[in-house]
């Protein structure tokens, strides 16, 4: 079973990429949508370039790296997980963790807030309350 699983994984890793593996991760630079959604002339040329590179035996990462070399990082549909672009991944996660922490702290404080007997009223307030109630009763 383990051997079979290893074989399947090895085949998956070594399998050449297809155009559809890459075109939804690369942006057409003139229309700002992924290649699979664009019919712009440059998108057509980029698809032809990717097909040529696949035929030449390049891996998906090699093809994307070459496109970045030619068009810059803006060609990637999602930011890279390194350098300054790493912030695009870390900030949402950090924000979610902070928000969850804030909700947790607030929920904890609300759950521990004192309830039930609020204790005796101040004498002055008690006197005024008695007067008001007596007026209603009267």
């Amino acid at each position, binding site marked *: 079973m383990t051997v079979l699983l290893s074989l399947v994984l090895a085949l998956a890793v070594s399998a050449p990429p297809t155009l559809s593996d890459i075109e939804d991760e690369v942006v057409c*630079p*003139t229309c700002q949508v992924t290649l699979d959604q664009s019919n712009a*002339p*440059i998108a*057509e*040329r*980029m698809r032809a*370039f990717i097909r040529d590179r696949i035929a030449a035996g390049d891996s998906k990462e090699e093809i994307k790296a070459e496109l970045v070399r*030619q*068009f*810059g990082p*803006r060609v990637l549909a999602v930011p890279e997980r390194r350098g300054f672009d790493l912030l695009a991944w870390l900030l949402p996660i950090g924000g979610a963790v902070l928000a969850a922490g804030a909700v947790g702290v607030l929920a904890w404080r609300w759950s521990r807030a004192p309830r039930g007997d609020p204790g005796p009223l101040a004498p002055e307030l008690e006197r005024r309350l008695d007067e008001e109630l007596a007026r209603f009763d009267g």
Partner: protein
Amino acid sequence: MAARLKLGAQALAVGLVVALLALLVWKLVNDEGSAIPSALARGERPVAPAFTLPRLDEEGTLSLADLRGKAVVINFWASWCVPCKEEAPVLEAAWREHRDEGLVVLGVDFNDLRSDALAFMREVGMTYPVVYDRDGALVADYGATAVPETFFVNREGRLVGKRIAGAINSREQFERDFEDGIQLALGS
């Protein structure tokens, strides 16, 4: 303690909003690229944004500063752009005719595959210098919106004349605007 915490959180939130507004204002004020086409349309002569970009026609880089004292025609193009192919012979002819007077035609290729750009240059017989604006920074600085677009820089490094943009509707009009721009850039 709770009141101080609340006050601190409110101050932080207000501070963040103010910082974001300041960033927005800074971006709007410093976004000079888009100001160039409107300045040219008003007949002004804004300073041409400086650049240093890698060359496509040979090894190395080329800066606008390298061309100081020369009149420069800056033409943004891409190999997949049909009108770029139509106007390329006019640009080449201008370069050959006026280069001895101190005119440089400079092609700026962008949003293009390098191999396609080199094939295009060979096909149209382009002999003037060409740089590659990989990140589109120069396109943004000049306020160019599409290809082809052409700007004229005079010997003092100022943009002059009309910005010629888009497909050629009338070849005579295009050649007239183009020649007017060249003469303004040359200062004659």
